């Protein structure tokens, strides 16, 4: 088990660092490319869409809303989270710099199937097709 988890932890830490640096860049106003806006709707007990495809280096803004109760949005691998209150829009900016699949999930206990409320962001190499 340890052999399976340890590389994942190391990879996760590296990914988080890369994303942190990306976010820092954006906050410093250094990002030049226009941001693509991706709308994500949360409801019991799913996100729509449940898969987001991005490319390395592509700046995006995730606009997250909730249709029913308070949900959460958390990507532990990338150190990102937001509260999704009904009637409000949460915005999360990111510029992925590493390919991979990143799971996000609800971290605000929302009901009977809360534990299965998750979706994924898939980051592709910039020259690959979705």
């Amino acid at each position, binding site marked *: *088990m340890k052999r399976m988890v340890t590389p994942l932890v190391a990879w996760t830490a590296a990914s988080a660092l890369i994303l942190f640096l990306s976010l820092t860049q954006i906050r410093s106003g250094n990002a030049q490319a226009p941001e693509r806006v991706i709308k994500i709707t949360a409801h019991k007990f799913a996100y729509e869409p449940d898969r987001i495809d991005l490319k390395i280096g592509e700046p995006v803004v995730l606009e997250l809303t909730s249709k029913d109760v308070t949900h959460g949005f958390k990507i532990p691998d990338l150190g990102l989270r937001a509260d999704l209150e009904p009637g409000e829009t949460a915005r999360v900016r990111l510029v992925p710099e590493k390919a991979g699949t990143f799971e996000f999930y609800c971290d605000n206990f929302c009901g009977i199937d809360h534990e299965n409320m998750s979706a994924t962001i898939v980051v592709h190499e910039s020259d690959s097709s979705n």
Partner: protein
Amino acid sequence: MAPKIDRREFLKLAGIGGVVFASGIGCSLAGNKVSGTMSKNEDFYFVQLSDTHWGFIGPEANPDPTGTLPKAVAAVNALSVQPDFIVFTGDLTHTTEDPRDRRRRLGEFKEIVSKLKVQSIRFMPGEHDGSLDKSKAFQEFFGPTYYTFDYRNVHFIILDNVSDPRARLGEAQLQWLNADLSKQNPNSKVVVFTHRPLFDLYPQWDWATTDGSQAIDILLKHPNVTVFYGHIHQEHHRMTGHIAHHAAKSLMFPLPAPGSQPKRTPVPWNAATPYKNLGFREVEADVNHAKYDITEYPVVRS
């Protein structure tokens, strides 16, 4: 004069861990507490039960959802030496969005555990009990969600990391914890009971407390702290600094090892080994040395 008995020594002599004790050895072990002349620092033991999830339905994980908890109660009652007290570390019931069902399940759970011989029982909510109503129903049945008690020179602290649906202890509780520990003798022994792990065991599966690191920072100031928790439905042991954290098995369905599979789905029931990986534990407290010996028990003996 009644002879004193060291229960761990007795276990060694018996060559067993938690099997039936011999009787008629010249000292009284009947009743809820070991009788005799106990000093305040005398060893004692308690039983931890966790994650009973009363109301759960899922035959692929447990085809005996209404029988498992009563079997566990019977197993605890069958212990030859009854514990000094019993603690349930949360998820007494399985979640429901219907407040009436929630109360019905809490009431049924309370009725079942009322059959335990030892009625010195400490409760705390899990997220299934309390996260949808900030533990309002839980408190109607079992009282406060975080509190302290003292037993034979050990200071016990119950922490609530579930009533906030974002898995936070919250600033008020953290301040309360800090104030409580500040009042303790620096060398006193402290045991914490909580539902979720205070450290980041596997946040992807909600196996963490959002502000748990702040609680650990407070606890680290104290030299003798041990944490017992539930939530992850399996035995697990981890150190954060000098603090040992011990997770308990569930009494409804086991869960896979952290991160061992994509989804946190229950381990399927195996008819060849029913109730496998379900159980409860005894914790023998060596007060003078702040040591806690754990013995795991199955729900039913094969």
